[in-house]
C-alpha cells in the first residue's frame, strides 16, 4: 500500500518516470484541509489550479504515475504536468478531434471506426443545419472529422460534428479524393504543436490540405496524385528522420 518515498515533481521534469512513481508537489498545492484553513485566515492569496495530464493520477499527497515516459511540465496558464509517452493505439478522450470512417448506418445513427476498442456512434442530427427532414448525405465508407462528446471506459463513445454553439467550425464530412494513412500518436502531437517545423517546411512546397486526427489518422489532399504521395511519404518518414535529413529531402524535392 505504501508507495516508495516520492520525489519532488520539479526535479523529475524531463526525466523518465515509471508507473508507480510518486511525485510530490510543493506544499502550496497540497490539499490538506488544515493547511488551507490556516492559509485562508492568514489572508494569503489562493494559488492557482494544477492540471494533472495524461499518464498521471491524483493520489493523496502528490501525483501517481501510471504510464512510462518523460515527465513534462508547463509553468504558465494553469500549470500542468503530464507524461509524454509513445503509443500507437488510441483511447477515446472527450473533446478530442478525430477522423472516423463510417462503417454502418443503423437507423438514425452512424457507426464510426475511430481506432479504439469500440465503434463510436454519431447521430444524424449532430451536423450543422441538420433537421429531421434535412438529413446529411453520409454513406458507408465516408470520412468524418468530429469530436468526442462522451468518451469513458464505461460507455460507448459518442461523436458530434458541431461545437457547443451549434457551428460546425471545420468538422463534418471530409471531401472527395485525398489519402488517409495512419501514424503513431506521438507524431500527431508533434505535428500539432504550435510552431511545428515539419508543417512549416511542407507548406512551402505545394498547396495542399491536411486533416490531422488525434487517433493517429492523417488525411492529405494535393492537386495531383504524385504530390499527395510525396507529402504522405515525408510525413510518415519524419517520425524517424532528423531535422537535417528532412531538410535535405525537401531541398531535393523542391529542386526537382
Amino acid at each position: 500500500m505504501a508507495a516508495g518515498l516520492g520525489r519532488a515533481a520539479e526535479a523529475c521534469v524531463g526525466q523518465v518516470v515509471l508507473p508507480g512513481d510518486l511525485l510530490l508537489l510543493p506544499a502550496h498545492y497540497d490539499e490538506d484541509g488544515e493547511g488551507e484553513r490556516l492559509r485562508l485566515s492568514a489572508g494569503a492569496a489562493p494559488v492557482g489550479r494544477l492540471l494533472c495530464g495524461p499518464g498521471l493520477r491524483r493520489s493523496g499527497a502528490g501525483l501517481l504515475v501510471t504510464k512510462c515516459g518523460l515527465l513534462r511540465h508547463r509553468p504558465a496558464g494553469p500549470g500542468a504536468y503530464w507524461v509524454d509517452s509513445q503509443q500507437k493505439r488510441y483511447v477515446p478522450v472527450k473533446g478530442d478531434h478525430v477522423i472516423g470512417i463510417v462503417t454502418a448506418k443503423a437507423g438514425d445513427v452512424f457507426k464510426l471506426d475511430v481506432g479504439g476498442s469500440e465503434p463510436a456512434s454519431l447521430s444524424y442530427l449532430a451536423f450543422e443545419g441538420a433537421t429531421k427532414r434535412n438529413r446529411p448525405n453520409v454513406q458507408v465508407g465516408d470520412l468524418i472529422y468530429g469530436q468526442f462528446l462522451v468518451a469513458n471506459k464505461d460507455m460507448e463513445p459518442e461523436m458530434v460534428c458541431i461545437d457547443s454553439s451549434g457551428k460546425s467550425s471545420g468538422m463534418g464530412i471530409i471531401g472527395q479524393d485525398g489519402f488517409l494513412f495512419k501514424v503513431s500518436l506521438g507524431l500527431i502531437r508533434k505535428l500539432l504543436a504550435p510552431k511545428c517545423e515539419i508543417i512549416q517546411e511542407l507548406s512551402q512546397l505545394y498547396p495542399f490540405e491536411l486533416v490531422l486526427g488525434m487517433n493517429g489518422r492523417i488525411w492529405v489532399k494535393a492537386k495531383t496524385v504524385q504530390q499527395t504521395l510525396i507529402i504522405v511519404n515525408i510525413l510518415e518518414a519524419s517520425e524517424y528522420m532528423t531535422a537535417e535529413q528532412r531538410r535535405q529531402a525537401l531541398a531535393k524535392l523542391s529542386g526537382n
Partner: protein
Amino acid sequence: SCIIEERSFVRCEDLVYGRMSFKGFNPEIEKLMVQMNSKCKEEEIEVDDKMEADVSDEEMARRYETLVGTIGKKFLRKRDQRVLKDDNEDDEVDEDRNSNIIPRKKAKKMFLKPQD
C-alpha cells in the same frame, strides 16, 4: 488550490486545430485556421458577425415613418376617409408627396338641379 485531472493532450500542450490548408488550396479552411488559432491565443474573444444589411438603418427608419401613416389610413372608417379626401381636394390639383399629379377618379359631387 486544486488539482484537475485532464485526460487530453490538447489542453496540456496547447495543440493547434487539426484541419489545415496551405497556399490557398481551401480558402474556407484557411480562414478557419486564422480564427481558431487567434482564439487560442486571445482566450476566446467572441467574434461578433454583423450581418450585412441590404437596407441601411436610415432608409429603414424613413420607410417606417411613412408606412405607419399609410397603413393607419386603411383602418379609418369610411366617414373619416372621406373627410380626409375632401380636405385634400380643396386645391385644384391633387399632388401626392412626390409632387405627381393624381388624376381624379370621381367628379366632385355637387347638387344637380333636376331637369324637367
